[in-house]
């Protein structure tokens, strides 16, 4: 019953590639932003928070269009890149960037939730034991954020697999080059007699997403200590509140 055209395999491969690249790209950015939002004493924290979350509430088409303006030949970044001979718009790179931007709020949220569980006293303990702030970041915050980073990765990956609106605007729908699974499904659904193929691709994306979720669940279980570090939670509020004793 399942039958795939060569273009379908290409879409599948491209989707996997784009989703992997996008979630890996957004991981360090998400980690840095979450760290800023949780631990820094930045003045414009609320503004930054709003900005990070914007792609979550905006229609993806809007994000895609803004990206097109920014990265197109007339856009300032696109123009700059064009001078170095790099074209972004209507290539698979554009699909990666669109997916990354759409997945960013999910990544930041996941990591942030994890970081907020880290007892700030642990960071103080590490500082008094001789670790500079970046040392503390690498040896305390990073390892304790690993489970939430895995959760963020799987969320961003799954979101990238389903990305449609922003991708179609900034990367187009070129079979074999920028046509990911959702775009291919969209094409089939507009073609007479394409229902079976559309359905086959739907099944594939369901299986793919499900496998990713299972894998991340498995990875989370490996970090048994992820549950034990809650011992100090709640003291964050206490630390902020009480100046003494």
């Amino acid at each position, binding site marked *: 019953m399942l039958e795939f055209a060569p273009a379908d395999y290409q879409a599948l491969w491209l989707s996997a590639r784009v989703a992997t690249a996008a979630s890996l790209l957004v991981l360090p950015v998400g980690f840095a932003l979450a760290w800023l939002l949780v631990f820094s004493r930045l003045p414009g924290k609320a503004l930054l928070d709003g900005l990070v979350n914007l792609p979550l509430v905006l229609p993806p088409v809007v994000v895609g269009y803004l990206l097109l303006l920014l990265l197109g030949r007339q856009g300032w970044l696109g123009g700059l890149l064009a001078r170095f001979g790099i074209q972004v718009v209507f290539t698979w790179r554009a699909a990666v960037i669109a997916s990354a931007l759409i997945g960013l709020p999910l990544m930041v949220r996941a990591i942030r939730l994890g970081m907020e569980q880290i007892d700030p006293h642990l960071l103080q303990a590490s500082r*008094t034991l*001789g670790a500079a702030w970046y040392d503390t970041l690498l040896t305390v915050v990073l390892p304790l954020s690993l489970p939430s980073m895995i959760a963020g990765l799987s969320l961003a990956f799954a979101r990238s697999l389903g990305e449609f609106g922003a991708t179609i605007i900034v990367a187009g729908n070129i079979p074999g080059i920028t046509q990911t699974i959702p775009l291919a499904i969209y094409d089939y659904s507009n073609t007479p007699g394409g229902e079976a193929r559309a359905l086959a691709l739907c099944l594939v994306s369901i299986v793919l997403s499900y496998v990713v979720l299972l894998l991340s669940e498995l990875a989370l279980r490996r970090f048994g200590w992820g549950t034990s570090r809650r011992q100090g939670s709640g003291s964050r509020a206490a630390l902020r509140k009480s100046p003494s004793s």
Partner: protein
Amino acid sequence: MQLEVDLKLQLGDFAFSAAFDVTGRQIGIFGPSGSGKSTLVNLLAGLLHPDRGRIVLNGRCLQDTDAGIFLPPERRRVGVVFQHAHLFPHLSVRNNLLYGYRRTRPWHRKLPLPEVARALDLEPLLERGVACLSGGERQRVALARALLAAPELLILDEPLSALDHGLKEQIIPFLRKALRRFEIPYLYIAHSLNEMRLLTNRMLLFKKGTFHGLADVEQVARERMSRCDFGYLNHLQLGESREVGDLQAFRWGRTELIVSRREGSEPGLFELASKDILLFKRHPEALSARNLLEATVAELVPCDGMIGVVLDCAGEGLVATVVKEAAAELELRQGSRVFAVIKAVAFRRLL
């Protein structure tokens, strides 16, 4: 250790101010909760910025707002053992212990891991994760971790207050032994006078965010004797012992004290409530109590209807409390001779 502090900080409604200059190895910081003790800890460790002030430790300036000097926590060499151990949950006990050690310059390191682990009885725990440690074990690991970083000053911020009473008694001997043995000067913060007496000899008093002066721990304990249910708790350092029938006779200065066998036979520190000491004007005969000491009254300290009688028993000090009427009947005066009677079961081993 020589510590010079002059700090001011406003935190909402709470105003903190302290100015003192203290020299010593075992200093306490004493005050009720909310008195600013932990604020001082955070300021000394560099975890909190003062509005104004300076901190000089052993001639090294850690902070001077006027000169724009602020050493970050990692460069102060001020170690902290917090109320809750705050062990790193992703590291094993061994790696927790080595966290500070690895970040200490080799020429600053004083103690090797095996020695500290042995002193605090941590050897069997080294390869474990920290999630499965008991409260007392966690505190011991936290203490060892701080000691291994060889700080110039160690701050113990109510390290026992989160433990229940039984555990406290178990961990105090470790604490005393380790702190004395490794000779790291420390500030001990607590609101329990008993802990203070066991671990420090002088203390800085804090009240409502303000420094109230330096006091002798024993002095404060005597002043407070009427407020405590047991009056004053004498701490007696007893020496070698020998068996006397079913009891144990411990050397105490030039005399001997008879103590119940269940308190063990090793030399150590014993506790004796001032209310458990009976005073007689003349030599009593045929007693049920096993200790009869001849003593001179060194000092009378009246407090709230009771009178604290500081006794001199052949050179050793002992405090008894009696009610006013009894004091009048005994005709107690400075220099008068009395007989002190103590039951063998009144002693309790502390260490």
